[in-house]
């Protein structure tokens, strides 16, 4: 395309402007606004006043809700580990053993995204219920106590979070496994490596970028989640997301809520930047989906 080549800087600029304007107005500006709001005092009813002296919103918010922050990180961590344990063998199977069924299996992995997130989470209430297909038989066989329950415990919250975000773990791991040059594995076999040795020395190291991207993409939404804690947990499993949504939508204490969300954001940005430094942003974005 001659025109495209003669004006190299103009064309990409024109292509980028609408998207950048949209993200600037509705992603960047809101986050800056939220940062500014964290220095407010007052409520929606009484009106807000800005002062740098209101930086105390931060230590106050952190002091009050430290427990929920810690719990979010714990649950997020546990859910990410659980996702990895389930996702890696499945991704490995799809990449190396599935043959022609590969694209169908990949579709099944993203299939949960096509049904309502809330209804699927509520579906777990039925599956994990006190007399359900999971607990019922165990109780019948006397393997567990009749009063034992999974629902409304930290376990059901973590299981729900893991379930909701596991496709974000499977897909990047699959992509990195699928890219591995099969000749490397053949060479290892020719050189008398055991299949475990080949896995440990070739497959696993080469899938590390996928594992990293997957854990990040699972961990980030996991620590910000509040649906699972609300629908599958009890008041003692409240996460920082539950606090933020309550502060914004019920209490309407915007300054505290803004300080809380901004701290969450900073925590995550620090993680992403560190990771970007380690592997390069190109890697990060291309492996994301």
């Amino acid at each position, binding site marked *: *395309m*001659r025109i495209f080549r003669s004006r190299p800087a103009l*064309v*990409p*600029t024109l*292509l*980028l402007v*609408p*998207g*950048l304007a*949209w*993200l600037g107005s*509705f*992603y960047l*500006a*809101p*986050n800056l*606004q*939220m940062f500014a709001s964290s220095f407010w005092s007052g409520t929606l009813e009484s009106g807000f006043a800005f002062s740098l002296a209101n930086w105390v919103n931060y230590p106050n918010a952190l002091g009050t809700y430290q427990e929920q922050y810690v719990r979010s990180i714990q649950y997020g961590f546990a859910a990410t580990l659980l996702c990895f344990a389930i996702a890696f063998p*499945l991704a*490995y*199977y799809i990449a190396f053993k599935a043959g022609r069924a590969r694209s169908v*299996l990949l*579709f*099944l992995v993203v*299939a949960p*995204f*096509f*049904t*309502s*997130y*809330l*209804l*699927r*989470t509520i*579906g777990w209430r*039925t599956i994990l*219920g006190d*007399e359900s297909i999971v607990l019922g038989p165990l109780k019948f066989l006397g393997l567990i106590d009749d009063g034992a329950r999974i629902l409304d415990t930290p376990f059901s919250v973590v299981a729900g979070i893991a*379930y909701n975000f596991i496709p974000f773990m499977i897909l990047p791991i699959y992509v990195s496994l699928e890219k591995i040059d099969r000749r490397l594995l053949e060479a290892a076999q020719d050189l008398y490596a055991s*299949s475990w040795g080949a896995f440990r020395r070739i497959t696993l190291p080469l899938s590390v970028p996928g594992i990293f991207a997957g854990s990040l*993409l699972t961990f*980030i939404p996991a*620590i910000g989640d509040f649906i699972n804690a609300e629908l599958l947990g009890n008041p003692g499993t409240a996460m920082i*997301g539950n606090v933020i*949504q309550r502060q*914004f939508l019920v209490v309407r204490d*915007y300054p505290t*809520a*803004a300080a809380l*969300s901004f701290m*969450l*954001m900073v925590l*995550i940005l620090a993680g*992403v930047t560190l990771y970007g430094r380690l592997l390069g*942003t*190109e890697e990060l*974005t*291309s492996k994301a*989906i």
Partner: protein
Amino acid sequence: MGVAQRIVAALGSRVLTVYAAMALVYLLLPIFMVALFSFNDPVGRSNYSWSSFTFDNWLTLFRDPTLVKAVGTSLRIALVSTIIATTIGTLMAMALVRYRFRFRKAIDLFVFLPLATPEIVLGASLLTLFVTLQIPLGELTLILAHVMFNVSYVVVTMKARLSGFDMRLEEAAADLGATPWQTFWKVTFPLILPGIAASAVLAFGLSLDDFVITRFNAGQVQTFPVYIYLKVQKGIPPQVNAFATLFFVATVSLVAIGALLQRRRANLKP
């Protein structure tokens, strides 16, 4: 390979297959539950435990006007935001894949950031902006929000599709005297159409199902997920499951038809 090693390898592969099958069951079981309970005839208000089979919920799909309105609102917002997000996202992806310019890497990272931000932060920060600017919450604010999070998904999906594009096809068209405009519509667009369609289906699904960002910026408007959320305490009517199943079947059919069409086209090539 020794006999023992061979046995271990065979066992390992069997275990892997079983494990993978179990993982898939884990992924798909809740979807099955959603569909199954659309055929349940619940005793009482809550639809959590199975009582008896019925087609009633499907026959009375449109019984609750609030639910029908919520579904309509969701579909409208999804349609508008998908069209806008797919268009501006595709343009961005083309710029990022095909051109080398200053700040390209920075823009790449910037576009990725919304995907690396928890939904609750996206929703909450937009709410603070709208409240500060005194923009009334409603369908308009929801469309603005849905386009925002969908643009990033479209860019990432389209970038992956565009990076395999053979630029020589465009050069050939230009050499044969086609104007850039003709080249775009006759060569480039048909080739990237499957990618655009895939991004659009993804964006539509994400918009239809979004709850967190929507909850913050909906005001009094009820979308399908908001309707479900508000009904959790009082009991979710089984018609909700029927609608969700309908959406699932529709999306799966769309994706399957798309895949079949693409395969047929691939087979037509020499």
